[in-house]
């Protein structure tokens, strides 16, 4: 290969797209490292504190697309305080200073401010795509800057963010000359929407393929929007609470019938069930359906809709569909690859009549041969069911089971669920992500360490008996990248057994476990390439340096590998050892 001029090698590298592969290429020799560096267009940074912007730009000066992730995964469940970190501003400032030709920015669990959005919108003339997932810290004013200044904007995708809605006119800020939009998602905005401005924007965006509305967009507006965008592939419906009058319903049906390219449907934030039939005509084309926010629709309405979706590959739904509904899914959706069933009763208000049980899970596993990813919340499970699921579906890549009541055993035998999960890891040789729950002893971790050779991410809650459990995992799962543990009896012995191991992983999270301050200090002592963070929000627990009790248990521990040392932006309740 070295006999070819650099341009030829670079051209070959263009075909190598995955980050892992490109990272491998750059390790081959100095010459390849150099060529790869200057031709890398997309960079993925899984932990924004593992590296800093200066080094990123130094190595990849020609980058066009950057993906950054901030807070650890458990931040999604309120386990990480808001001001913990993950600020994007320094990154945008550095990129702007260095005149990087940024075109795309994808952020997950980061703190974004209006100031950063304003700077972003003014600094990169060719900026095309902004995707924010589970971020916070900004308002619709920030969105207004993006709309106003990004002349070539193609994608504005806001997923699950906490946005302060100033009820401003951000949609009005898209200039009349803006006709390049391909994707617009503002479903998570809580306030009112200027529907007229939205309609004008959609009307002048012939390339619009994905549109996801928030709850403020009413039924009649939906019909008009769909009429001027029949080319839509992906639609997020807002809400419509009252039963529609026959005329509005007819208009909606007519508009929907024309959307023959529609493949993905979501939203339905507050929906009167009688509006659903308007969507029946396009159900046969759908490959993705997300009804996980449709809290008011009961099982029988959901079933009627799903019965028509024979091509479905991805389904996100609430457990109000019931076992009965899952049997219908198993019979209907033979192409199903990914299923997520979320809990609808989180406050335990309903009778012990379980919405979905092991019966639904087994039915799905038996009926859907292509299933490879599942997230399943339920109130009860059995080993027999899990063993059956493992036998039916050895192709799982992601298997996440959350039994709502911690420590709950097999509801028929009253035994732990070790054997059930053991069967899953033994059968599913390609398993990359696993979440376990229910009553579990160290035994399940022995199985995981023994069989889950491809496992990259493991989530543990209320499980295990002794340090041995965690050790089985750390010793066995060589490909582990992210380990997150809460409310489990693992302590210093497990934490400190193989400190070098943590540099082969992205991060470790342990909260409400048995690790102590002393243990964490020992861990941090000889690990310059690890940041060991102790998060302690309780004011009363914070003692002076000289009064410290090394035997005191640590509330939350988050450690991650890094090449840039301790971060300087941590709040006072985060202590970096």
């Amino acid at each position, binding site marked *: 290969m070295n006999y070819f001029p650099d341009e030829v090698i670079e051209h070959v590298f263009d075909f190598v797209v995955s980050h892992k592969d490109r990272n491998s290429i750059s390790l081959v020799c100095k010459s390849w490292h150099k060529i790869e560096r200057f031709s890398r267009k997309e960079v993925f940074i899984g932990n924004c504190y593992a590296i800093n912007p200066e080094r990123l730009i130094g190595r990849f000066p020609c980058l066009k697309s950057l993906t950054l992730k901030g807070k650890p995964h458990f931040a999604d*469940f309120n386990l990480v305080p808001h001001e913990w970190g993950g600020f994007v501003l320094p990154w945008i400032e550095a990129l702007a200073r260095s005149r990087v030709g940024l075109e795309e920015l994808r952020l997950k669990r980061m703190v974004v401010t209006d100031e950063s959005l304003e700077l972003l919108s003014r600094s990169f003339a060719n900026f095309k795509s902004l995707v924010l997932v589970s971020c916070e810290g900004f308002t619709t004013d920030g969105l207004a800057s993006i709309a106003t200044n990004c002349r070539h904007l193609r994608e504005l995708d806001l997923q699950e963010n906490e946005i302060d809605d100033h009820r401003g006119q951000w949609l009005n800020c898209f200039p009349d000359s803006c006709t390049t939009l391909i994707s617009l998602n503002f479903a998570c905005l809580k306030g009112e929407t200027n529907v007229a401005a939205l309609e004008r924007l959609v009307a002048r965006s012939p390339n619009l393929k994905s549109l996801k509305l928030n709850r403020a967009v009413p039924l009649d507006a939906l019909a008009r929007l769909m009429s001027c965008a029949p080319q839509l592939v992906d639609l997020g419906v807002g809400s419509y609470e009252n039963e529609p009058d026959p005329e509005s319903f007819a208009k909606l049906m007519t508009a929907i019938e024309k959307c023959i390219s529609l493949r993905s449907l979501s939203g339905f934030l507050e929906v009167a069930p009688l509006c659903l039939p308007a969507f029946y005509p396009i159900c046969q084309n759908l490959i993705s359906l997300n009804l996980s926010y449709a*809290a008011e629709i009961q099982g029988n309405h959901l079933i009627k809709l799903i019965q028509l979706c024979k091509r479905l590959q991805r389904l996100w739904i609430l457990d109000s569909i019931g076992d009965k509904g899952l049997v219908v899914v198993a019979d209907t959706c033979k192409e199903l690859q990914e299923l997520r069933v979320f809990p609808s009763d*989180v406050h335990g208000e*309903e009778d012990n009549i379980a919405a979905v049980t092991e019966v639904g899970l087994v039915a799905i596993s038996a009926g859907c041969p292509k299933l490879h990813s599942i997230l399943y919340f339920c109130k009860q499970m059995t080993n027999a069911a899990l063993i059956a699921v493992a036998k039916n579906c050895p192709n799982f890549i992601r298997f996440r089971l959350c039994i709502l009541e911690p420590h709950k055993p097999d509801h028929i035998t009253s035994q732990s669920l070790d054997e059930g999960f053991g069967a899953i890891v033994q059968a599913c040789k390609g398993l990359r992500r696993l979440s376990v729950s229910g009553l579990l002893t160290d035994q399940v971790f022995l199985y995981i360490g023994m069989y889950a050779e491809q496992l990259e991410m493991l989530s543990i809650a209320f499980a295990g008996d002794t340090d041995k459990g965690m050790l089985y995992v750390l010793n066995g799962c060589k490909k582990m990248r992210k380990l997150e543990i809460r409310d489990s009896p693992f302590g210093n012995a497990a934490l400190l057994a193989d400190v070098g191991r943590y540099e082969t992983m992205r991060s470790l999270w342990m909260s409400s476990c048995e690790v102590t301050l002393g243990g964490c200090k020992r861990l941090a002592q000889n690990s310059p390439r690890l940041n060991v963070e102790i998060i302690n929000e309780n004011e009363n627990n914070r003692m002076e340096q000289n009064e410290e009790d090394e035997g005191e248990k640590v509330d939350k521990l988050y450690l991650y590998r890094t090449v840039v040392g301790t971060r300087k932006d941590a709040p006072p309740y985060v202590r970096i050892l």
Partner: protein
Amino acid sequence: MDVSNSCSSFSSSSVDSTKPSPSESSVNLSLSLTFPSTSPQREARQDWPPITSRLRDTLKGRRLIRRGNDTSLFVKVYMEGVPIGRKLDLCAFSGYESLLENLSHMFDTSIICGNRDRKHHVLTYEDKDGDWMMVGDIPWDMFLETVRRLKITRPERY
């Protein structure tokens, strides 16, 4: 953070946690004697089950609840001046008449809809926009879709 009764079995790993603990069932019993239609108060954990805040908030706002083959629509009812409220399943009533009858019985006083009256308590409700309205103006089905909670006002208010 506060943990509800049902989570008290965290520390013991081999208890059959399918049955409610003894203290929980006696709380249920005493509550059901004094407040027939109240569900036991449970502190909601913000970090379990592991779902996002957005989904948690959506479900909190959910009013229709499955119970067996029926649905219930539980709303809180307060009598002005009385700090402890009641909870009522509106799906159990066929219309305004049976609602008023039941409420009058529950609070042991005469309650009416509609016209202000210096003698009687008047029933009002909070709609989905957060506004307080007089009960009885709109059709019963529409009322069910929009009502968030009820308040029985004192006669001299008006």
